Structures are given as structure tokens and as C-alpha cells.
């Protein structure tokens, strides 16, 4: 026990009289407005705030006298008049390792708060009465701005203390209207703003990068692919003549490429959390999700105005149905038209596909009660919408008013109410003319075959069981009943549950029944369904393996929308109407005067109103959010460092003026993203070199390159690595869109058993031909429960969580994958075969390899070292004979049977391998090609291929 007893009483008496009356008032204000809120927010939780809980260390801080008494360990916690002698100061400064208070890093007081405490104690620790505190609060609330910060008007918090709290203006930068800075310079406005900051910091900008660096940077950046040697050559020539024109032409060419949309849609899908399955224990197929992926690619390629892109994703279904309803006015006819979907035109069909955005999150109501399952969905969608479109994490508001941001819980449940009628469904919606339906027949036939296999096996077992059941009924002189009919009969009036089946057969029956479902479900991939939403009451049953619309459901239904106290369904509080975030002071169009942030509470149109408000040009979160993201993907580094969180605790923008300039300019020019690309890319800030003459000093003074003094290098993303290799080897099939393709992946992973509820998921089998497999990664089948090991190793994010920025740490599994895997080995062989075709002698072949992989000539030294390596390898490979890789057409699975706890086996067929066309492998080629492939593999492993400058 610590003993720091100091005679404090003498000080106590004199302290009150030290100050004149007006300073007394000042210190009472200090206590009421600064110290007390800190005590209540940071301390009362453990020290006296809860009447039912013994204060920790018997230290109660809720009144002055208790505070003075100290706890079981301290009697000198508070020494009025002397902060130096008050032990509480040591605690809040974290100077005593055993008593660091508050103990959580997140709650730790900042210097200013500590200073407030000290000032208050030095002033004698005045603690005005409750009435006096109230007076002080009331007086304070009439002032919008004080030295404590600004007040933000919102729809109101759960407590006055929250409602009337103050913010530092720079903390809530994102909630303030966008103010376009005036740029007088003739320079690109980005350069003017970035350079003005740079020169204030005493630095010059980096020189311009060279032409080769620029074309590689721009080509990967806009298309996710490397430039070809020919493109580099041509650009180089044009650049000699007129660099600005050449650069501008290059950007135009890349923006017009189909590959642009494939690259930039990937960024969007990272944020939106795209996957082809639903996650959790069943990981059910979302068979038609690919239509949304293709919609996003088209949206980028056609430069769909971003505000429209927002509205379609949040309310496309509402727009489509309103449009259909215009053509089919009769209510009943309209309802059946919605139900069968056949009459939607191309435009409407795409709107319904767009709102698949609302189905992106992982969700499965299995083993969850319905209200909870709904809550999980709604919480997820509210947070996703905040994060994706407004860079605002809404999750924090679910249980309490936001600790830091001006976002009250009430607003959370108003946005929540906007989604409450939203129900999830696969809706029949015709394929539009621009959707890729190739290879449907082949895919359908394969699925049909797998389904038939599973259902035949299932039927055999059912027949066996029912034969025994019949026998039982006969022996017991009862009339036969099917399993469904006898289900609720008492145990002694029916045969045993698994009659006639041993544990092996019981286990197999369960597996086959699952498979039958899985393949049946996958057949839907070739039917015109869309994973989308509709408005209506919550359906009777929720099962993620089949979610269908009930268009005839009660149209008069309205949800009872309430604040859920503490986020608990069991504690419904105040009723709320649908609405938007109030802190932004952006009213909803057509909202009542007394509540400008309210949106209508009809069944339909809530989301549309919310979407229009999000896409309102005055909404500062939305416009800053998107320009910040676009900037981030160009530079590998955002202006505001947390693109999913613009709140008080998110990183503040390094260049707020650039951000605001771009946001305002974006809106003024019709929300076009392609124009924004060009504005950014034609800046010198983008075109500057990754090297800087003052690098040493910069690394010291600005280690994170917050000044953008030079171009930040970045590692290629997982998809760029795979797609780039395919492009370089000449294997890339550039076909766009359609049903997900399945690249080869590590066969051990592909065939490894993967648990789903009650069973093992079918094996991952690659597409049959190289042509299908070697398409771009964005088209690859994305299973939440089975990450592609190659892409995952290179930090492709987990699709359960929105990814604001990808990681690129170098870890050893990357080395294993790049050096040893079948996948990269196959690429290296294809690359070797390509250069052997393109060039005859070793020197030229090496040159060609460097041209394709690095877009440059090898140096003389490199050329000779690599030639030596290839020769060394030729000698090596002459002595070895690679084995041929085989592909199994069936595998035996083993599973523990739940009932008996015993393992059993069953057979799974892999028909795709029956007439599979593998990539060229080591056994197919001679020693010289294998030696060349070794060189090719090195280049894929090199820093130079991996990094972009």
C-alpha cells in the first residue's frame, strides 16, 4: 500500500480565498465545462458513477468530498491548491506505472486536458453546486463558438452533455461545407497548392520522372497492367517531340481502354466487399453476383457520373420499379410483372443489378433468431453505407452517441429506419444485351452433371432407408408413411430415424443432400436472377440459401422504427422517423420545416431519398470521400489518411485545400471520375520522380512523405502481380465480364476439405481451358471461405471487411509462392516459350525477357550475369527429368460423422479434369526451355517487377 499522506487541510482552507470573485467564476466554468465532463467520461465508469458498483480502490470521484477522501491507497489524491502535491496528477500523467489512469490508451488524457486539471486544482478545486453548473451550461449553450470550440447542431444526443459539447473546428473538418480555395497561379491547381505547402516547409519539388517510369506508372495505375515494349517505345518517341502532348494522349488512351474499368472497379469492390458467396458457416453461393461486378466495371468505363452511381447502388430497385410501374399502371399486373421480372427493360435491369450493393456484406441467418438476423443485416448495411460513400464509420453510434464525432445515436436509427423495409432476394431480372453470357451451355452442363451425381447418390440412400421403413411398417401392421408424413408421429409409431443405414451411410446421406442443394443452387447462376433487394415486410422465414421476393406482401406495412437503447433489441426506446445525418446541415429535399433531416416514411422511396441526400452536391462527406479515394489510388497514399473514417479520430488531411479544391471542382464538372484522373495525372505532383535531391533531409523531417515532395513508390497489388505476369507471358485473355472464371490455384488448397455446416464444400476446380483460366483476376470466383492462396499471400483483403488501404508487408510466404508454386512456375514456362519464339539466340532472348518484364534493356553486366545463369541452369536441367503433374477426376473425402463421432469416407467427382487442358508444364519442355524459365521466374521475383516508382 502506498502512503503519501500530506497535511492538506491547511491548504484547503486558504485555497478558497486566494482568488477574486471573477476568477472564481472562471474556475467554476473551468470545472463545469472541462473538468467535470472529463471526470464523467473517463473516470466515473469505475470510480463511483454506478450506484450498484463498488468504486475501484474505494476511490469515488463523484463529489468533491469523496474525491478529497481519496481511496484505499491514497489520501492525497486531491490537494486543493497544489497540483504538484495532488497524486491524481501523477496518475493522469501516467507517471506511476501501477496507477496509469485512465488505464486505456484510447482514453488517455491529452496535454491540454492534463493542464486543465492542474489549473483547476491550483485554483483550489472549486466544485460548484448542481444548480450553478446548470446555470453555467445554459449560459454556455447560447454561444455557438467559444474558446472551447464550436457547437454543432444535431438532432440531439441521448444526454444534454453530448448535445451541447464543443469541438475543435479542425477536428470536425470533414463535416464542414467544402470551400473551394482560390488558386491564382497558372499552374495546375494541385501543383499550386502542394508546392505552396512544400516551399513553406523549405523543400523544392522532385524533378520530373523519366518517360519510361511515367508510362509504367500510368499504365499500371489506370489499367492494372504493364505497358508493352512497343507502347513504351512509341511513347518515348512522342515524348521526345512534345512531352505534354504525349502524356495527355497517353492518359486519354488508357482511360479509353476497357481495362481501365477492370482496374478501378477493383478498388470499388475492395471497399464494397465483393464476393460470390455469402460467408459464415454455410458460405452459400450468391450465384449471380457477377452481374454487379460487371455493372461496376461498366460504370467506370462509361464514366457514369458518381452521384448517379451512388443513387443506383442504394436505390436502383426503387427506381426500376417506379419505372416499370409507369408502364404498367394496374397494381395487380404490376405486382406480377415485378414477381416474374420479364418485363424489365435493359435500363431497369441494370438498376436492379446496381442495388446488389446492398447485398455485399457477409450475412447468413442460420442459427440466429430472426430479429437478430435482421439487426445484423441492418447494422451492417448502415455502417457499409456510411463507410463507403461518406467515409464515416457508423458502427460507433449503434449503442451510444458518437464519442468523438457530432453524430448522435438518433441519426443512426434514422438511417437504419431508411433501410428497415429493405428485404433481400434473388429476383428474376432479364440479362441485358451488354452482359456476357458466353460459355453458359458448357457451365450449365457441368453443373447439371454434378447435381445429377449428388441426387442419384442421395436417392440410393433414401431408397435403402425407406425399404427398411416399409418393412418396419409391415411388421408392425401399419400403413407405410413417407419420412415427411411420419415426422411428427410418436417414436414408437414409426421406424427409427436412420432405419437401415449404418453410420457411414448416415454420414453420406447428409453430405449428398447438401451437395444436391449446392449444385441445384449453382444452376441458378445461368438463370436471369439478380442478388438484390425489394421493399416489404420481413418475410416469414429467413434462409440465405433461398431468398425470394413476395411482391404481393402487405404494402401498407410500416416498420416500428425506434432507437435501440445500447444497441439492444430488447430495449426499444424513442420512436424515430427515417432521416439523415443532421450534423452536416444539409437538408433533405421536401422535408418538413421543423425537421429538415427527415425523409418520408412510406414503404418505398426511403432509400432513394437517402441516396439523393448522400449524392447532394452540398454533402461534404460524400464529395471529399470520393476524391480522397481517387487520390489515394493514384499515389498509394490518401490526403486524409483514413479513407473509411473522416471522423475526429481519423487522420487529418495533409492537404485540406487540395481536397476541397478537388471536391468542388469534381461537382462543378459533373461528378466525372475520368476528368478527375486527368486533372490529377497532368499535375507535376503526379509526374514527379520518386527520387528527390534532398532525400536524406526529407526522410528525416517528413518520413511519411506527407508533403508529397516526391512520388511514393508502391508494391504491385495481388491482382496486378497475377495479371501483369499473364500479360508479360502473353497468356492473358482480355475477354471481359460474365460468370466467374476459376484460375488454377495451389492444388492442395483447391482440393483440401473445407467445412461448411454439416458437410464439406465441393472442391475448387479450375476452369477447363487455359483461355478461360487466364483472364483477369477481377473475374475470378471469389469465395469468402476459400481465399485464392496466391492473391491472399499478396494481401488481397478479406472481403468480410471494407478495405480502405491494402497492406504490402514483405513476408516469407510471398517468397515461397513466387519461387516455388505451380502457378508461377507455369507462368515462367509460358514466358520462356514466348521469348524462345520471339528470339533465336540467348543474348536476344535475355534482351527480350528484360523488355517484356522491365520495359528496358539489360545492362551489359546484367546480360552477361544472366546468360551465365541460364547456362548454369541448362547444365542442371540436362540432368533432371521433371515428373508430369496429374489431375484427379475423383477424390475420396473423409469426414467425422456427427452422430457417432466416427470418420467415414465418400467419393467426390471432379469431372472438369476428365478433358482438362493444363498449362504447359516442366515435363512438356526441354532443358533449355526450363533453364530460360528459371531466368523468367527470377524476373518475376525481382524488386523491379514488384515495385512501381
Amino acid at each position, binding site marked *: 500500500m502506498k502512503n503519501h499522506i500530506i497535511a492538506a487541510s491547511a491548504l484547503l482552507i486558504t485555497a478558497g480565498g486566494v482568488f477574486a470573485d471573477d476568477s472564481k467564476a472562471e474556475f467554476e466554468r473551468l470545472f463545469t465545462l472541462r473538468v467535470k465532463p472529463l471526470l464523467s467520461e473517463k473516470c466515473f465508469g469505475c470510480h463511483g458513477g454506478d450506484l450498484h458498483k463498488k468504486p475501484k480502490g474505494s476511490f469515488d470521484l463523484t463529489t468533491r468530498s469523496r474525491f478529497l477522501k481519496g481511496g484505499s491507497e491514497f489520501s492525497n489524491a486531491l490537494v486543493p491548491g497544489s497540483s504538484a502535491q495532488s497524486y491524481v496528477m501523477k496518475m493522469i500523467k501516467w507517471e*506511476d506505472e501501477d496507477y496509469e489512469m485512465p*488505464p*486505456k*490508451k484510447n482514453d488517455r488524457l491529452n496535454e491540454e486536458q492534463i493542464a486543465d486539471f492542474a489549473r483547476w486544482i491550483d485554483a483550489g478545486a472549486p466544485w460548484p453546486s448542481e444548480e450553478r453548473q446548470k446555470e453555467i451550461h445554459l449560459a454556455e449553450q447560447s454561444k455557438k463558438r467559444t474558446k472551447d470550440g464550436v457547437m454543432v447542431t444535431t438532432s440531439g444526443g441521448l444526454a444534454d452533455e453530448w448535445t451541447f459539447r464543443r469541438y475543435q473546428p479542425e477536428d470536425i473538418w470533414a463535416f464542414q461545407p467544402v470551400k473551394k480555395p482560390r488558386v491564382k497561379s497558372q499552374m495546375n491547381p494541385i501543383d499550386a497548392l502542394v508546392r505552396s505547402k512544400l516551399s513553406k516547409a523549405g523543400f523544392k519539388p522532385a524533378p520530373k520522372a523519366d518517360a519510361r517510369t511515367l508510362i509504367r506508372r500510368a499504365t499500371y495505375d489506370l489499367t492494372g497492367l504493364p505497358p508493352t515494349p512497343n507502347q513504351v517505345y512509341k511513347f518515348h518517341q512522342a515524348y521526345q517531340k512534345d512531352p505534354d502532348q504525349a502524356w495527355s494522349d497517353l492518359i486519354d488512351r488508357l482511360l479509353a481502354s476497357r481495362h481501365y474499368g477492370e482496374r478501378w472497379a477493383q478498388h470499388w469492390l475492395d471497399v464494397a466487399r465483393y464476393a460470390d458467396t455469402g460467408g*459464415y*458457416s454455410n458460405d452459400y453461393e450468391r450465384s449471380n453476383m457477377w452481374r454487379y461486378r460487371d455493372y461496376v466495371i461498366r460504370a467506370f468505363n462509361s464514366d457514369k457520373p458518381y452521384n448517379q452511381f451512388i443513387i443506383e447502388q442504394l436505390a436502383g430497385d426503387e427506381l426500376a420499379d417506379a419505372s416499370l410501374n409507369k408502364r404498367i399502371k394496374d397494381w395487380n399486373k404490376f405486382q406480377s410483372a415485378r414477381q416474374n421480372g420479364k418485363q424489365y427493360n435493359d435500363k431497369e435491369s441494370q438498376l436492379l443489378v446496381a442495388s446488389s450493393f446492398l447485398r455485399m456484406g457477409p450475412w447468413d441467418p*442460420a*442459427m*440466429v433468431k430472426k430479429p437478430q438476423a435482421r439487426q445484423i443485416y441492418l447494422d451492417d448495411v448502415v455502417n457499409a453505407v456510411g463507410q463507403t460513400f461518406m467515409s464515416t*464509420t457508423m458502427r460507433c453510434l449503434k449503442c451510444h452517441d458518437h464519442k468523438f464525432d457530432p453524430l448522435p445515436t438518433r441519426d443512426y436509427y434514422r438511417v437504419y429506419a431508411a433501410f428497415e423495409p429493405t428485404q433481400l432476394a434473388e429476383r428474376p431480372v432479364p440479362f441485358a444485351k451488354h452482359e456476357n453470357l458466353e460459355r453458359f451451355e458448357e457451365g450449365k452442363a457441368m453443373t447439371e452433371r454434378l447435381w445429377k451425381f449428388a441426387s442419384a447418390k442421395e436417392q440410393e440412400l433414401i431408397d435403402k432407408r425407406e425399404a427398411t421403413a416399409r418393412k418396419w411398417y409391415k411388421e408392425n401392421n401399419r400403413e407405410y408413411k413417407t419420412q415427411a408424413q*411420419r415426422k*411428427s408421429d410418436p417414436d414408437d409409431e414409426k421406424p*427409427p430415424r436412420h432405419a437401415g443405414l449404418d453410420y457411414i451411410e448416415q454420414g453420406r446421406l447428409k453430405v449428398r443432400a447438401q451437395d444436391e442443394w449446392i449444385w441445384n443452387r449453382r444452376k441458378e447462376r445461368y438463370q436471369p436472377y439478380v442478388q438484390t433487394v425489394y421493399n416489404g415486410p420481413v418475410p416469414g422465414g429467413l434462409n440465405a440459401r433461398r431468398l425470394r421476393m413476395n411482391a404481393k406482401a402487405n404494402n401498407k406495412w410500416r416498420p416500428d422504427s425506434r432507437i435501440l437503447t445500447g444497441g439492444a433489441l430488447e430495449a426499444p426506446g424513442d420512436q424515430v422517423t427515417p432521416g439523415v445525418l443532421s450534423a452536416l446541415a444539409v437538408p433533405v429535399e421536401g422535408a418538413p420545416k421543423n425537421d429538415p433531416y427527415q425523409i418520408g416514411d412510406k414503404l418505398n422511396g426511403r432509400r432513394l431519398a437517402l441516396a439523393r441526400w448522400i449524392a447532394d452536391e452540398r454533402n461534404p462527406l460524400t464529395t471529399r470521400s470520393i476524391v480522397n479515394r481517387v487520390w489515394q489510388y493514384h499515389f498509394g497514399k490518401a490526403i486524409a489518411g483514413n479513407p*473509411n*473514417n473522416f471522423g*475526429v*479520430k*481519423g*487522420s487529418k488531411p495533409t492537404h485540406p485545400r487540395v481536397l476541397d479544391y478537388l471536391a468542388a471542382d469534381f461537382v462543378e464538372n459533373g461528378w466525372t471520375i475520368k476528368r478527375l484522373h486527368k486533372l490529377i495525372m497532368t499535375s507535376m505532383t503526379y509526374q514527379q520522380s*520518386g527520387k*528527390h535531391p534532398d*532525400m536524406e533531409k526529407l526522410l528525416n523531417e517528413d518520413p511519411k512523405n506527407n508533403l508529397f515532395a516526391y512520388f511514393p*513508390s508502391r508494391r504491385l497489388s495481388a491482382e496486378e502481380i497475377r495479371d501483369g505476369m499473364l500479360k508479360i507471358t502473353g497468356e492473358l485473355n482480355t475477354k471481359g465480364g460474365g460468370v466467374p472464371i476459376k484460375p488454377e490455384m*495451389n492444388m*492442395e488448397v483447391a482440393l*483440401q*476439405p*473445407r*467445412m*461448411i*455446416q454439416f458437410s*464439406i464444400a465441393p472442391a475448387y476446380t479450375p476452369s477447363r481451358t487455359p483461355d478461360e483460366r487466364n483472364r483477369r483476376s477481377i473475374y475470378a470466383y471469389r469465395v469468402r471461405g476459400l481465399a485464392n492462396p496466391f492473391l491472399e499471400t499478396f*494481401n488481397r483483403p478479406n472481403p*468480410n*471487411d471494407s478495405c480502405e488501404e491494402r497492406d504490402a*508487408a*514483405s*513476408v*516469407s*510466404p*510471398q*517468397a*515461397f509462392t513466387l*519461387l*516455388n508454386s505451380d502457378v508461377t512456375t507455369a507462368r515462367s514456362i509460358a514466358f520462356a516459350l514466348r521469348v524462345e519464339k520471339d528470339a533465336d539466340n540467348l543474348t536476344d532472348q535475355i534482351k527480350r525477357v528484360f523488355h517484356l518484364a522491365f520495359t528496358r534493356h539489360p*545492362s551489359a553486366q546484367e546480360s552477361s550475369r544472366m546468360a551465365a*545463369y541460364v547456362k548454369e*541452369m541448362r547444365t*542442371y536441367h540436362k540432368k533432371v527429368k521433371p515428373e508430369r503433374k496429374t489431375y484427379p477426376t475423383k477424390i475420396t473425402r473423409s469426414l*467425422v460423422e*456427427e*452422430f457417432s*463421432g466416427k470418420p467415414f469416407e465418400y467419393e467426390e467427382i471432379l469431372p472438369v479434369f476428365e478433358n482438362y487442358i493444363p498449362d504447359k508444364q*516442366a515435363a512438356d519442355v526441354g532443358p533449355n526451355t*526450363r533453364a530460360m524459365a528459371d531466368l523468367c*521466374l*527470377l*524476373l518475376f*521475383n525481382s*524488386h523491379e517487377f514488384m515495385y512501381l516508382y
Partner: protein
Amino acid sequence: MGSVALTGVMAKEAAKAAGPLAPQKPMLPARAKNVIMLFMEGGPGHMDTFDPKPKLNELHKTESKSTKSLASGFKFFVGSPFKFDRVGQSGIEMCDQWKFLRDPDVADELCNYRGCQAESLNHPEALFHMNTGSRLGADPAIGAWATYGLGTVNQDLPGYMVMTELAMPQGGSRNWSNGFLPAHYQGTRLRPEGTPILDINSQSYKSRDHQRMALDALNFLNAKHSAKHPEHKDLAARMESYELAYRMQMEVPGVIDLQGEPEHIREMYGMNEKDTAAFGKQCLMARRMIEKGVRFVQIFSGGWDSHDYLERGHSSRIKSVDKPVAALIKDLKQRGMLKDTLVIWTGEFGRTPDNNRRGGVYSLGRGHNADAMSMLLAGGGVKAGSIVGATDEIGSEAVDVKHPIRDFHVTLLHLLGLDDNKLTYFHAGRYKQLSQFGGKVITELLA
């Protein structure tokens, strides 16, 4: 006091300079240095393993009005098919299916904790919660936090290793992911069959000499490139990742090759019997990893989800882990490693005292129960030979020394000398911690 803190910080910084996995001093006096966590996936029934409920046998097959599990319709109580007794000096309770764990030498090392409560009734969420502190499955696993906080002793092996059955547990690798922590802290899964670490071996037609030649040629290319880009600090780390990969290729086979283990040890772990061979091998590998300086080892063993035919299901599951777990504890003890190694045996939740009719018949099994479960802890500073906490008369919920999973996590870190409130990582605008919002040390568990 201040100077001690400062030394700590300096040591930490120095360690960081030596790489993200360099060993670091614990923040607090540590009771355990390493962890072996045996994860019984599916949720073992506490009343069928370590927490006897005679009342349930009285109520057997009578109607239950509980609304706890998700199943609706008629429900009835299920008595445990197993008999219980007290074992060892300490009198720990366990069912008669445990034949090896009841050895007093082992039993008296155990601490049976009955107060933990999960939150989710669904396997993957509950697994994520127990493994990462969050039900969403995107946050760092406990092993990742532990290696982030303490680094690891052996720089030629990952600090956090995971073993599973051939089938991955539900939720897959997200149960051992690094989440928002840097990728160095992710769990490395040793695959039970085939290649232990994906692509660790070079193509079969490429020898180790071949690989050295390739690495040398690669180093030539990369060195030239690095020389051109002195400003680019990631390049050195990337070169090192290749060299570590090369060293791991040598080190990993040494961990998994059990040929060198004497026959009596193999026998002790149950490697000679069909039922225990797989888990026994993994337990023995776990011991070898800890010996080699791996910080955190996890083994997943599935099949505990007995909704039906509880007797057969649980007795066979118990059989498959009983002998290996007992051997692991004994072996660690005889090598003097148990005091530094915390062994945990747990599922993601417990099971309900009742069941619903399944397939239209009285099926003797149990549903998922987030309110009660049973864990075993041994070694590493826990109170040996004790029962901590209690569940109610029928095992429906914890009633004494009741704590949510986050408190269990905080306790685990505490045993390792880490303070959950200080072991933070700044991510997306806030200091994140394993317990999410902070928690309490369960002092009753500490020796």
C-alpha cells in the same frame, strides 16, 4: 520507476530495430512465456466433460421450457450419459471417459474454469470471438497479439503456428489472421498432410543447390536495383524475407519430423493408436515448437458439435484427445517447461442442458449454449488443481466468477506479461486492443 519504464521503452525500440519479430520484454512480470491452445471446435458439452449435473439425470427426457437455444418447438432435458468422479489430490471432477487426464500427475495440474460466457450461438462467429476477440472475423487473433507484444525467440520459424485437421475449422484462416496488425504476426498453418507450409518446397525437379543458385542470381538483380533506390526502405526487408524463407525450409522439417522422438514418447502421445494418432502427433509437434522458441501454438480438433447421439459423439472425441493432452502436460512437466507454458483446452461455447426433437424423434444431444462452458488451463501461472467458477444446477448458465470472453483474453495476456490496455495498435482512427473495449483480469485463475 520512471527509469524502469524508460528502459522498457528503449529495449522495445532496440528490439524493433532488429525486426518485427525480435523478442521483446514483457510489460509486466510474466508468468507464462508460451501458449499452447487446444481448440475443441464445435463446442464440447461442459456437463459431459468436466462439470457434472446430476439434476439433469433426474430431469432426463422431461419437458424443458428454456428459450435459450435457437431451436423452437418441444424441448426436453438430456442427462449426461457419463458418470463423474473426483480425481487426484485436488479432487477435480471429470467424466469417466477421461482415462488419462485423471492421472493425478496430470489432473492436479489442471484448473477447470466454469465461468466463461461466449456471446454467439453460431459456430463461426463464436470461433472468431474466442480466437480474435471480435465476432466479425476480421481482427487479429490472440496469437497475433501475443507475437506482436512479445516477438518470438526463434527467428527461423514463425512466432505463431497453427495446426488443424485436414478440414479447416469454420471461418478458416480468419481464426488465426493478423487482422489489421502487420502481416508478420499472422498464424502460419502447418498443414496436417501434404506440404506443411504452402509452397515451402521447391518444385520436385529443383534441388536445394538449384535454389541457392537462383537466390544468388536474384540477389544480383535485386542488389543492383536496391543500389539505384537507396530511398526505398522496404527493399531490404523484402530481401530478408527471401533469406528467412530459405532458412525456414531447413528448420520446418526439423519440427515436424518426429522420427527422432523415442518410442516411449510416441507411445505416450498416442501416436501408435488409430484414434489418437493425428492429435497426438500435433501435440508432440506443439511441444517441439515451444522448445524451439515458437511463442504461440494452436491446435484445432473438430467434431464436438453433438446435437445428436451425444454419447457416441463425445466419447469418441474425448478418446481422441484424452491421451495426447495428458501426455502433453506430463511431457512439458518432466522437461520443466510447464511452468513457462500455458496450456489451454477450450471450445467456442458450451452446450445446452436440453435438446429439441430432431428428425421427429427424441434425439439425445445438445444445442449451442453461449452462457456456459468449461475450459481447462494448465501451467503458465494458473492455479493448479482447482475448479474456478460455477454454472447453475442444470448447466444452463454460468453463475459464479462469471466473465465474458474478453476478460479471459485479458487474463491470458496478463499471464504472458502483457497489459491488454497497453497492447494496442493504432488502426482506423483508434487504438485497438484484443478485448476491443478493455476487460478485467480473472484473478481467481491466477496461481
